[in-house]
């Protein structure tokens, strides 16, 4: 029986569609997520479906009241998401690129994230902020960040970064149903990748890790697109008789520390692969977890593979140098052996 395949993009679109059908309080907003807002001309409706076409078609089914194009005012519309969530809705807000967080961070960090706590637990903010991460598009320094670490740092937020269409759908549905604010990080380079995606709705716990490959020689903990590269590296290593245990850290906050610790216990070696820059990063957290809670099991120094501490450059050879690649993962694994 052949499983249905969908792209990462279509899987996200389907999750939104299913949740909007299921629950009237779910609505989506963002810049040009439908396109040509305010125009009646049927040729124009859904003119874009989002800059990455992830929300295509939704305005046709749900109309402009629940699929809202916004002016370019991220503070106001992300904040409107927070306010709508505090008053009973389940908004899904699109922040076009994670690098745009700077114009709206206060509404995320000081309002959405802290509100429940400041109010003594007497509010809930069931808000999802969908955003895109990742280099590889030649989109240069302000449109290529993968800086989810910034959000992981803030208490009050949950952060997920799926690497497969299957996880994207299940995590997004879980995020929408969750009563806390969730930052949902979609990797632009993954939108066109395909994989099996069950029909109908299903959820994946927001504190879970994926375990796409088992092995006993070395643990590779990777995030988002770095999981794919790590699996490629693992294939090549396997040919040399080195079996990697690959952990997909799809949930960044909360995170499944035990999945990591159990794997380290098994392998005694740890390589962390992260597309975010190195300082104060999830990669550091994983290494710190090893240093604080698995030191007795480590047979080698931990290896961390990330981009350098630089912004993302534009020119193709520079950008290609910036993003971690399969060779560097393989070299890191070998350095632990």
């Amino acid at each position: 029986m052949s499983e249905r395949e969908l792209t990462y993009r279509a899987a996200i679109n389907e999750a939104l569609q299913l949740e909007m059908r299921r629950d009237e309080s779910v609505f989506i907003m963002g810049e040009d997520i439908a396109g040509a807002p305010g125009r009646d001309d049927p040729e124009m409706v859904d003119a874009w479906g989002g800059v990455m076409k992830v929300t295509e078609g939704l305005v046709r089914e749900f109309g402009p009241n629940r699929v809202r194009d916004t002016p370019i005012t991220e503070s106001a519309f992300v904040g409107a998401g927070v306010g709508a969530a505090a008053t009973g809705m389940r908004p899904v807000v699109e922040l076009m690129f994670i690098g745009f967080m700077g114009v709206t961070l206060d509404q995320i960090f000081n309002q959405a994230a802290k509100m429940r706590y400041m109010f003594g637990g007497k509010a809930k903010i069931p808000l999802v902020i969908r955003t895109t991460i990742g280099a590889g598009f030649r989109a240069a320094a302000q449109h290529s960040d993968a800086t989810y670490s910034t959000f992981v740092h803030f208490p009050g937020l949950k952060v997920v970064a799926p690497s497969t269409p299957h996880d994207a759908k299940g995590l997004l549905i879980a995020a929408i149903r969750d009563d806390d604010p969730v930052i949902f990080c979609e990797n632009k380079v993954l939108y066109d990748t395909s994989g099996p995606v069950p029909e109908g709705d299903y959820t994946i716990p927001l504190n879970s890790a994926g375990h796409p490959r088992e092995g006993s020689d070395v643990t590779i903990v990777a995030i988002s697109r770095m999981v794919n590269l790590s699996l490629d590296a693992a294939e090549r290593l396997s040919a040399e008789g080195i079996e990697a245990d690959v952990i997909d850290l799809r949930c960044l906050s909360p995170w499944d520390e035990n999945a990591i610790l159990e794997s380290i216990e098994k392998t005694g070696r740890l390589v962390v692969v992260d597309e975010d820059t190195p300082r104060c990063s999830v990669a550091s957290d994983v290494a710190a977890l090893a240093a604080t809670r698995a030191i007795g099991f480590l047979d080698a120094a931990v290896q961390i593979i990330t981009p350098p501490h630089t912004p993302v450059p534009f020119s193709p050879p520079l950008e290609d140098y910036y993003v971690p690649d399969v060779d560097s993962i393989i070299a890191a694994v070998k350095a632990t052996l």
Partner: protein
Amino acid sequence: MELDRDRLLWLYERMRLIRAFENRLHDDFAAGVIPGFCHLYAGEEAVAVGVCAHLGDDDFITSTHRGHGHCIAKGVPVDEMMAEIRGKVTGCCKGKGGSMHIADVDRGMLGANGIVGGGPPLACGAGLMASIRGTRQATACFFGDGGSNQGTTAESLNLASVWKLPVVFVCENNRYAETTSTDYSIGGPDIAGRGIAFGMPGIVVDGQDVFAVYEAAGEAFRRARDGEGPTLLECQTYRYFGHFEGDEKKYRTRDEEGHFRERDCLEGFRKTVVAGELLSAAELDGIDEASEAAVVKAVEFAEQSPLPEPAECLDDVYVSY
């Protein structure tokens, strides 16, 4: 203006209660029993009360760092407020928020806000909820003259305008942001005009006169609920105390303060209703006493309440984690 006796009594009661509450905090702060920053609303009562008079329990407000008056006008119980400001577990935020984050979402009070300009986007959100659901709920968004310069405020004015959100923006222009006079900080002739520029009525209102506020807000909320979109009310008012408790107010003259104290909203109200034989002086005196008593009771409640257990620090971050 159709203001019946009950409504008049309510207006005075609320204003008076705010005044009593804030005066007491002023003293208590000086006595050293109030932790943290404390921004008092005394002097500006007519604004919160004239606006909130139009709101029911299922309407919303967003507030500022100077939020006590908004809370009381919206019906948050003073016992829980005082306990919160003292950091007690019986406080409306269980002691986690304090004066700067005092809130009561169940009563539609979406929180004081330590971030100047933090509230307007939230107000758009409450308005959006009502707009999407097609209810007649309205939201009042309070912010200061200082807050009117913040980009989030401008963005929110525009968003509410283009989406015709049921939000009434209430700028409390009390002439200062900390030490900074509006003469220095406000580009343009007034703040109301910014509303007009963003496509909504922008009206300058005498914020010392609760009747003027009540009337202007009445029309604004009618518009909001009827789907005609937002309004910006610039209410000109004055804070009696410093920016926060401890501020020596070196940036303004005692003369200027005196001038505004002469236009006190409570005094003005009293004169109008007594002269117009709408309420008697005795009735008003009774409210004065009751307000003081309510505050005394609130302080007792707060003082007798326990502090939170230290480890409660860890709770209430997430619904689940």
